[in-house]
């Protein structure tokens, strides 16, 4: 096989050193992709261990302490090492400059620094894992996290450093979108993915410092006994929860907004239609970024928070939910009268929409406050967030991986195999997490290494589903790795997409464009002459 394009960012320097010192946003994106995939694998292995332990009540393969560490590390890895950097840092870095017709991001050196910050933070976290790992849950609730004897500190410090990495990435995107748009590319012509990344960056920049501070306070409490949250000194454990969720609720939108951007692109590209309501998608992105900051207390309905507080947070959660609804309807509308090609990215997109809807509606049910008292901290919550984070975000991540794989590497993957893997993943997902939702209804609390026997049958179903999932991921990993080398050469625009990123070669040359592109219309306007067609 001949290399896809004569000259591309991939061939511009082939040494390891040229990658490690690159300022090229595309290479940085690829490095993030590799790193986050690695941590997805790590987190997934933790998940499988969890599922195996839960196969039977009592001890299956590990003791309580090991289990407690395992779900903490699973949560920490998946959230901070995989999900939060995955789409923005990997695909965002690769695509945003291409989509806005720029040569690179605003601050390329900072961008490289964010890779190294991520690697540093991830290494510290990994070191923490080898030290045995924390057993606090990814939420680090005090006073447990300040008193337990496990290796909480390296995990805290690792996450703290990764926080800086995301801040830097966010800052970079904000400056890039503001100042590096090509001439003629006005705000309301920006691709929806760029909007999504922009909204995400705002949240990252505003929320992450608070996480940094709260982690620092916990670390200081462990090291020097600062005692800000220590009830014995008059401190209030609920204050920790406020500060933590002030970050972590917006953080769930850090996880889902970029994937919404991916879906907006994929829906348009695979139905050859303009977005049904571009305007609403844009405004709802900004709306989520803003209102998402007012709902954090919905994680604390059962914690002894004041009734007024619960009411206010519940009502605000209802408001933030609307923005997602708007988007789902707009995507559905985009399919209307389109020319829909059933390719693997579209299958993931459909899965995304459906699971996001379900997970979101469970979230809405929590926000009615009274129902939350039953569901809080049960497997229902586990199901809620896996519906959104696996069913939706991971689907979107896979969709993005497939949609942009030819863009990034100039190769195609076997389409039939990809479609079957996508269907397998969706089935695996349903078998894993629907039983978990029912378990939550039955009242099975989360973070349980051991459970009363009447919960067992559903747990077995869930474990079975998880192994399907793992199998599906293995297949995907297999054929994508194969395609990197042996896949058919993709050509510049294999999907026939009118997304702006496809206006440069695939894979793009180091400087992205040979001629500055022009932007007479917004992206994905297929109802005009001269639109690209699929090969």
């Amino acid at each position: 096989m001949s290399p896809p394009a004569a000259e591309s960012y991939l061939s511009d320097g082939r040494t390891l050193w040229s990658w490690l010192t690159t300022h090229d946003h595309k290479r940085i994106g690829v490095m993030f992709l590799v790193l986050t995939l690695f941590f997805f694998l790590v987190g997934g292995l933790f998940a499988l261990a969890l599922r195996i332990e839960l196969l039977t009540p009592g001890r299956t393969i590990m003791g309580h302490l090991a289990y407690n560490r395992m779900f903490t590390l699973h949560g920490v890895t998946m959230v901070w090492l995989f999900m939060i950097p995955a789409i923005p840092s990997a695909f965002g870095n690769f695509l945003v400059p291409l989509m806005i017709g720029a040569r690179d991001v605003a601050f390329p050196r900072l961008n490289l620094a964010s890779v190294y910050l991520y690697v540093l933070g991830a290494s510290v976290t990994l070191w923490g894992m080898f030290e045995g790992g924390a057993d606090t849950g990814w939420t680090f609730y005090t006073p447990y996290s300040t008193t337990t004897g496990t290796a909480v500190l390296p995990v805290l410090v690792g996450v703290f450093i990764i926080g800086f990495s995301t801040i830097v990435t966010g800052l970079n995107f904000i400056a890039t979108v503001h100042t590096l748009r090509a001439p003629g590319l006005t705000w309301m012509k920006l691709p929806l993915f760029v909007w999504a990344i922009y909204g995400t960056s705002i949240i990252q920049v505003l929320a992450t410092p608070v996480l940094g501070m709260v982690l620092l306070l916990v670390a200081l409490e462990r090291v020097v006994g600062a005692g800000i949250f220590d009830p014995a000194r008059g401190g209030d454990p609920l204050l920790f929860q406020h500060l933590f969720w002030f970050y972590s609720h917006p953080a769930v939108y850090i996880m889902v907004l970029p994937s919404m951007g991916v879906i907006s692109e994929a829906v348009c590209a695979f139905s050859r239609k303009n977005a049904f309501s571009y305007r609403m998608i844009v405004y709802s992105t900004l709306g989520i970024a803003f209102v998402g900051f007012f709902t954090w207390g919905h994680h604390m309905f059962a914690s002894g928070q004041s009734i007024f507080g619960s009411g206010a947070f519940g009502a605000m959660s209802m408001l933030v939910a609307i923005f997602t609804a708007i988007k789902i309807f707009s995507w559905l509308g985009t399919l209307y009268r389109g020319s829909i090609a059933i390719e693997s990215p579209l299958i993931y997109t459909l899965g995304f929409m459906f699971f996001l809807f379900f997970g979101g509606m469970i979230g809405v049910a929590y926000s009615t406050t009274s129902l939350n008292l039953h569901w809080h901290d049960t497997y229902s919550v586990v199901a809620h967030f896996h519906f959104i984070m696996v069913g939706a975000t991971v689907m979107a991540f896979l969709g993005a991986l497939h949609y942009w794989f030819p863009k990034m590497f100039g190769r195609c993957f076997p389409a039939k195999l990809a479609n079957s893997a996508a269907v397998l993943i969706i089935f695996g997902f349903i078998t894993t997490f629907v039983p978990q939702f029912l378990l939550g209804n039955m009242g099975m609390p989360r973070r349980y290494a051991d459970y009363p026997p009447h919960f067992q049958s559903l747990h077995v179903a869930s474990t079975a589903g998880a192994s399907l999932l793992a199998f599906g991921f293995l297949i995907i990993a297999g054929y994508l790795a194969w395609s990197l080398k042996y896949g058919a050469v993709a050509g510049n625009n294999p999907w026939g997409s009118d997304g702006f990123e496809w206006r440069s070669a695939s894979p793009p040359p180091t400087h992205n464009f040979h001629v500055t592109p022009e932007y007479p219309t917004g992206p994905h306007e297929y109802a005009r002459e001269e639109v690209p067609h699929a090969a």
Partner: protein
Amino acid sequence: MPPEAVTEHWGSEDARKQAAYLGMWVFIATEVLLFAGLFTAYGVYRSVYPEAFRAAQLTMEVGLGTLNTFLLVSSSILVALAVHAVRGNRPGLGGALLLAAALLGIVFLGVKGVEYSHHVREGGLPGDAYRFAEVPRVGASLFFTLYYLLTGLHALHVTVGVSVLTVLGVRSASGAFGPSYATPVELGGMYWHLVDVIWLFVYPILYLS
């Protein structure tokens, strides 16, 4: 002078400047939110333990705190003048002003050190080490912990700021900046002003009222 390649990357000089300012403002926003957690803890605990906070506050050395406020405000004025000088093509003067501001920052740190040593003598230490007999432990211990966290984090920022100002001052004095390329001085100045503004809020909540 910005290197040629930079302008090409940016498309225009205006875009480069705007990116620099915007990036700095976003960075400042993250700094503000970093302090937000501490301010929130202060607000919550103050409203829960008003008496203890009041009692603890009365033991603060208002004189030193005020002195420090004046030091920082004056240094801010010097920095503003320095930016003006650099923009007006007098980088030498600008450099001198920057170094003077850095000096005030160092004095600030010195005063802070004196204060800390007084607290250490009294036993008003953070967290576990709290031994201050005059004020009841519950609440007051939180006040002192917050005092150390707020001033400590701020002092860290002052230290960074002093180094930034020193580097900029030396480079400016050697003529590295001028009307066409004042961005580093402007950004460094913004950072220093930020440090000043944060102190403007730390000062009343810890020392006064």
